[in-house]
């Protein structure tokens, strides 16, 4: 009988590159930057590693296929390496592979690294991608903002919300994240913005304006995991362990079955319920000290608050405007600035979210430090509302 991942794996080292338009650096350079920080944090050597996972999505513009680029860039001594790709949740997938290897006893130390080099396309926004040989034959010409913007139209219709109120709440989401990100030297976008700026910005995909969209950046993030016993033997204290690691994928219902209303992300709900159960969290609002969610667009963060259960159905607009998810709110969200300010180098984002919570739990978040974060939750969404993978991970102090 499976009994979950809770407290079977400890995170002993993490690293995160500076995110941004890293014109002069390659994906390999960014990998080294994140890796060196993580290895210094863990206090182990390359020869101690038993296996490695690479999370990266766009092989066309990045490092190409396979995990060999990871092994070569980091000069890993002929380790077993695996490349994983699950759209924007690729980073979380890499951590899942590494954590499962340690939990299975396959190795003592495993590495998970996510990287993406998005700024080598010659244009703004995410690279154009194929939807498969069949999907390309019938699906419209779509972008990520347009796919997520659909949430807003369905949300307004479902909850009878005034579109202007929705726009204001979405603006607050971005204003809040910029305020947080301004304090983070690793973030890409570090300027505070005003609600007025957000509302007046040019439209990207109705009703999303430029400031409703996350940045497009290069970056890498890295985690080193081991067993709690080994971690303790290395003198790590307190210990940060994985409490839950869940991922749920669409079965085609959203796209093909008239059961989904388009105003939420079904897999986030499934994944969150499984994660709370696995972690033994019964009252998320009081137990979870900080959350890092997949705020690729402001409206995504808004519906995610309901999908994770922090806001009641149809209440996210009010909760957001009331400051519930601000730095000093009941459930601090995107305390590092989120995708909004870091940008979204696809493979790196899931691990970058964990990095912030890891710092918060260890009390190392500097000017962003919150009081007494014991548990933190990451939500990393791959795909679009109508077809996606939703990863929800919970990490925390081993009490």
């Amino acid at each position, binding site marked *: 009988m499976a009994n979950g991942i809770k407290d079977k794996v400890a995170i002993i080292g993490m690293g995160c590159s500076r995110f941004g338009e890293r014109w002069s650096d390659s994906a390999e350079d960014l990998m080294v930057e994140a890796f060196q920080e993580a290895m210094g944090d863990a206090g182990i050597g390359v020869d101690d590693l038993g296996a490695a996972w690479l999370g990266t999505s766009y092989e066309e513009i990045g490092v190409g296929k396979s995990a060999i680029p990871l092994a070569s860039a980091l000069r890993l001594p002929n380790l077993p390496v695996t490349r994983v790709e699950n759209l924007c949740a690729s980073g979380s997938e890499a951590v899942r592979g590494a954590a499962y290897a340690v939990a299975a006893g396959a190795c003592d130390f495993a590495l998970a690294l996510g990287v993406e080099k998005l700024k080598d396309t010659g*244009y703004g*926004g995410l690279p*154009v991608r194929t939807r498969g040989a*069949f999907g390309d034959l019938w699906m*419209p010409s779509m972008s990520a903002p347009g796919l997520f913007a659909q949430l807003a139209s369905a949300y307004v219709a479902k909850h009878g919300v005034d579109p202007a109120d929705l726009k204001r709440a979405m603006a607050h989401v971005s204003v809040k994240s910029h305020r947080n990100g301004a304090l983070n030297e690793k973030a890409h976008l570090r300027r505070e913005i005003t609600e007025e700026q957000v509302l007046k910005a040019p439209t*990207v995909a*109705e009703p999303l304006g430029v400031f409703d969209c996350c940045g497009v950046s290069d970056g890498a993030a890295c985690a080193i995991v081991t067993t709690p016993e080994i971690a303790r033997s290395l003198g790590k204290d307190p210990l940060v362990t994985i409490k839950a690691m869940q991922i749920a994928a669409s*079965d085609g219902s959203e796209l093909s079955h008239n059961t989904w209303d388009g105003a939420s992300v079904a897999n986030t709900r499934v994944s969150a319920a499984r994660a709370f159960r696995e972690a033994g969290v019964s009252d998320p609002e009081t137990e979870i000290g900080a959350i890092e969610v997949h705020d690729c667009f402001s409206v995504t963060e808004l519906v995610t608050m309901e999908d994770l259960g922090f806001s009641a159905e149809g209440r996210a607009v009010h909760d957001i405007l009331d400051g519930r998810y601000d730095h000093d709110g009941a459930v601090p969200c995107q305390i590092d600035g989120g995708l909004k300010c870091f940008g979204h180098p696809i493979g790196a984002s899931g691990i970058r979210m964990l990095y912030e919570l890891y710092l918060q739990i260890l009390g190392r978040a500097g000017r962003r430090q919150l009081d007494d974060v014991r548990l933190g939750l990451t939500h990393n969404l791959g795909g679009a509302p*109508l077809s996606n993978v939703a990863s929800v991970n919970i990490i925390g102090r081993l009490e």
Partner: protein
Amino acid sequence: MSGVAQMTGHEIGIAGYGVWLPRRRMERKVIAGAHRWFNPALMAAARGTRSHCSWDEDSITMAVAAARGALDGREREAVDSIALASTTPPFLDRQNATVIAEACGLAGTGLRTLDVTGSLRAGTGALLAALQDGAIARGGPAHGNQALVAAADCRRAKPGSPDELAFGHGAAAFLLGGAEPIAVLRGWRSVSDDFVDHYRAAGSPFDYRWEERWARDEGSARLLPDAVAGLLAELSLSPADIDHLVLPAASARDAQRLAKACGLDPDRARDPLDQSCGQLGAAQAPLLLAHCLEQAAPGQRILVAGLGQGCDLLLFETAEALAGYRSAAPASAALDAGWSDENYFRFLAFEGTLELDSGIRAEADLKTAHSVAYRHHEALTGLQAGRCTACGTVQFPPERVCVNRNCGAVDSQEPYPLAGRTARVVSLTADRLAYHPDPPSRYGLVEFEEGGRLLVEFVEWDRAELKVGAAASLAFRIKDRDAHRGFRRYFWKAVPA
């Protein structure tokens, strides 16, 4: 050649018709105004509007729209042949009529398909050929063998040319044969004559044209009166017996002049609709015939002329059934549904004569995997969803396993056409980031009232409010064009219902 319809125990004629005109109507004064510095003489013809295709319309899509109108409510199994008449078929080698047949949900087995091209007379020629078809003649009411003829044209014109003002784009389709014709073919006559007033050489996008006064006075004005006199004599009719003369003249005045030359009262000449939609090429006479049938009364005679390297004459007599017939896509609705477009640059971009900088995003390779396209061609061209025979769930695209998680039956789905059904908008956006030839790219989910949903592009909502809950129907359009290989892909888009 000529002929008088033989009485074979049943009467062969037209069972129904449908018309499609692109919604966009370019103001001729806008076109002429743009060229005033270059050719001020164009201003003399700068009256009225002309129809023109959006970037996602061509002779195939317009023919499908017209044919679906003609087929509305009819038993599709009864149709055993389909022809496309066009001088602008999108493909020179890939039968265009077959694409139209699949989009119209016509059965593949036993269906004869044919493209008719090469002359502006292709429309009347295809109509005459189908009416004389042995299968229809033998079929009779008992068998119901029917033929579908669609005529469509979207001729391009050089910027600054008189053609740019004169041309229009559109389609008309006729369902022929069957037990209850609304108009019966009484006689016909064809004349072949290599009179070259204009031509379009293979590989050339535009027509080359000789002086129009010569074309009119030495061409149609000489040819037509003799041909009409010959046919009327053969049928023992006099010019006064003709109630309507349908002919693709350049203007109402020209039409009246030709009617008079044929011995008819000038008032019997039908309005050539040049002021509202322009000259539709091979689809012009078919459009005017459909327009005439909509306004004619039972027991009237309609003489249809097709011109181009000679002429075709078809004499129809309207039947009692015409009184009760209402087309699902009548010419009047197509004419009324237009909206005036004053953006000449967009017109040029849609015509393909102005290349805009679309940015690097537009460089994505649109190469089609033809083996994949063929594997799914019933879903793609025919918009066939799957309906689970175990639980009734309708799903697109059809897959082997039923999407209803309470069912999960394998290989349980039967074909279920979505094209004719009404849908409601579930979600939407107007996307200015994704590349689109007519930005923004509007798309979202629609849900069919009888089950099933579709991720789909929205088009033609310029004059209707696109919102959650809005009623939509589906239209067959160009999905995208592969600039490197000259291929174009088709799929269905949601238009206002």
